[in-house]
């Protein structure tokens, strides 16, 4: 059996003939944007929320990242956050709302509080729920009707997906991070290359990553169309979880770890599709287009449309037009206006530490504005405790308050039309960071390098200089 099969089988309440399974959900995360209509549904049916104790809420998509102690200025955002507060109260759901010391991006706080644990099934009305797969869970995003289903019954109707394993073996080069791994994989198989699949990431390069780096990879599974991605838990996972707020403790901890050690794909497990990648082939990556599959090495050239099939060319041309970029040009040296380091992909403490270590003693370029948006209150507090805020301030970077921020521009943090933003988030869709905004996805280190030089930069050149 595969790792996925082991968890799946355990959660099937009933298999409907010729149809989906009734699938049990262990943990349900909710946020302000995709839940109000689902709460309304419960009210309309006159039923309670089935398992409030398995439901956790936070406010993240709409929240300001400055002056969070003040009322939210924008009326509709404020209303949505207030609605969440009222709904959680009425239906008995724990809320880590604005001002709470656990507040943050839903996919950052679940793991950090130890709510996310191996072997679980986890859903959220948000496609990047795949992040939690890093712990060896089946975790995926759902729509609002499905949020209502889980509210009402703690179950979903699910068809079993196909399974793919992506093996990444070898050692990553200097300046290459887990973000580069996943951008490389998506560039290889395209933004729809894993649609219909659940992906397991395996291989020595994955095993050697920290939990936070693994989360970055699982987070972007959805960007190649996969329903989710997961990684078998190991000592790195257990070490990360031990002692966290909601992680089991005492004898229970020992018992759980023993169970979790059984969570791996058996040697004879069969996958519908397998891919092998050499870690040595991966370089720092940057996207140049308007879907996450349009990525190239930072040293690369923006591809020519003649390499594509005829019917793909109009979409490709539209993307380059939108981005104001040209086939045949190097991406390196492209001028940047904004740098956004944040989002559920790369806003954890390790990301901030890595950026701080790089910028220490350096200055941001005059032409850029740099926003660092921590993933949670706890990350923010930790960054301050470690003195990272001082380093950022000296470099001219703004350390803001937690939320989704410029990842999707639902709050005030928007990139102006026509401006270029190098971003550690996960989507470079048209208008994602603000109407007309032009997004280049990259790793925190590559983003930090661009912050310092004001242009797309191969961070490895700067690393060599500093270590000499």
């Amino acid at each position, binding site marked *: 059996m595969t790792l996925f099969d082991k968890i799946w089988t355990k959660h099937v309440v009933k298999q409907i003939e010729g149809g*989906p399974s009734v699938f049990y959900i262990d943990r349900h995360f909710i946020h302000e944007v995709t839940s109000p209509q689902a709460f309304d549904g419960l009210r309309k049916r006159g039923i309670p929320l089935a398992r409030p104790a398995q439901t956790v809420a936070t406010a993240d998509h709409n929240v300001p990242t400055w002056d969070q102690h003040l009322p939210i200025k924008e009326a509709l955002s404020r209303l949505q956050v207030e609605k969440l507060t009222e709904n959680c109260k009425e239906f008995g759901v724990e809320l880590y709302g604005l001002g709470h010391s656990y507040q943050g991006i839903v996919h950052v706080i679940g793991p950090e509080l130890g709510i996310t644990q191996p072997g679980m099934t986890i859903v959220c009305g*948000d496609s990047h729920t795949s992040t939690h797969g890093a712990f060896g869970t089946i975790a995926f*995003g759902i*729509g609002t009707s499905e949020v209502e289903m889980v509210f009402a*019954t703690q179950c979903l109707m699910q068809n079993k997906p196909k399974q793919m394993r992506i093996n990444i073996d070898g050692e990553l080069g200097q300046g290459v991070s887990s973000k580069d791994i996943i951008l490389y994989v998506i560039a290889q198989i395209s933004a729809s290359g894993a649609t219909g699949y659940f992906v397991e990431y395996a291989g020595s390069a994955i095993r050697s990553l920290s939990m936070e780096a693994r989360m970055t990879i699982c987070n972007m599974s959805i960007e190649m*169309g996969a329903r989710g991605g997961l990684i078998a838990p190991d000592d790195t996972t257990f070490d990360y979880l031990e002692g966290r707020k909601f992680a089991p403790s005492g004898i229970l901890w020992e018992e759980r770890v023993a169970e979790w050690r059984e969570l791996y794909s058996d040697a004879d497990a069969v996958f519908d599709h397998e891919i092998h990648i050499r870690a040595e082939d991966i370089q720092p990556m940057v996207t140049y287009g308007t879907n996450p599959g349009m990525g190239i090495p930072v040293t690369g050239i923006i591809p020519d449309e003649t390499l594509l099939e005829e019917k793909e060319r109009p979409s490709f041309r539209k993307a380059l037009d939108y981005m104001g970029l040209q086939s045949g040009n190097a991406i390196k040296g492209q001028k940047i206006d904004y740098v956004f380091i944040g989002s559920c992909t790369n806003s954890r403490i390790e990301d901030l530490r890595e950026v701080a270590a790089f910028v220490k003693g350096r200055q941001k370029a005059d032409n850029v504005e740099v926003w660092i948006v921590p993933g949670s209150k706890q990350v923010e507090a930790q960054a301050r405790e470690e003195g990272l805020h001082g380093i950022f301030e000296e470099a001219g970077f703004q350390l803001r308050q937690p939320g989704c921020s410029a990842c999707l521009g639902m709050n005030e943090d928007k990139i102006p039309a026509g401006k270029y933003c190098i971003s550690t988030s996960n989507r470079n869709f048209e208008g994602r960071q603000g109407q007309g905004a032009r997004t280049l996805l990259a790793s925190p280190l590559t983003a930090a390098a661009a912050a310092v030089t004001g242009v797309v930069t191969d961070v490895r050149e700067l690393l060599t200089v500093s270590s000499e």
Partner: protein
Amino acid sequence: MNIHSTTIPLENENVDTDQIIPARFLKATSRDGFGKNLFRDWRYNNDDEAQPKTEFVLNNPVFNGKILVAGKNFGCGSSREHAAWALKDYGFDAVVSSFFADIFKNNALNNFLLPVQVSDEFLENLFETIRQNPAAEIFIDLENQSITNVSTGEKAWFDINSYKKTCFINGYDDIDYLLSMREEIEDYEMSH
């Protein structure tokens, strides 16, 4: 259940949910009224309804109908069900493409917006038919799971699992079904 209609062709590939309904319109707390913001940034200049982008297909009076015909990988990106609500609210009953993103497909089915997946070739021929004749019609027969390009007579079959098909035809939703299983779910919880 049949859908017989002219179409609106959207030849772009990888149409993501941020295009279908941009994030700034997700602040509503009800399910209604999203149709007017469908493809908002492709439809208007400067976010202004008085400045339609005439080249965009929804603004082209030649095309109308209850079926959207779209390029490969339609509905990728975010899980926002608002995308399905917006399409439905605008007046679509079906979307035809050669490939749908998973979450979008579920969301569409949960809102009685029928996703019809056809082969690349069928889709290409369909676009060609519509280019030649904007008034070309499509006939979708859910019972038999078939779709016909009426002008050419080309016919194909599409997949939908039998459970969902029954829900669709009878207007049931999953929650009714799951609520009827309450005891089995509780038994499951006791034994796990």
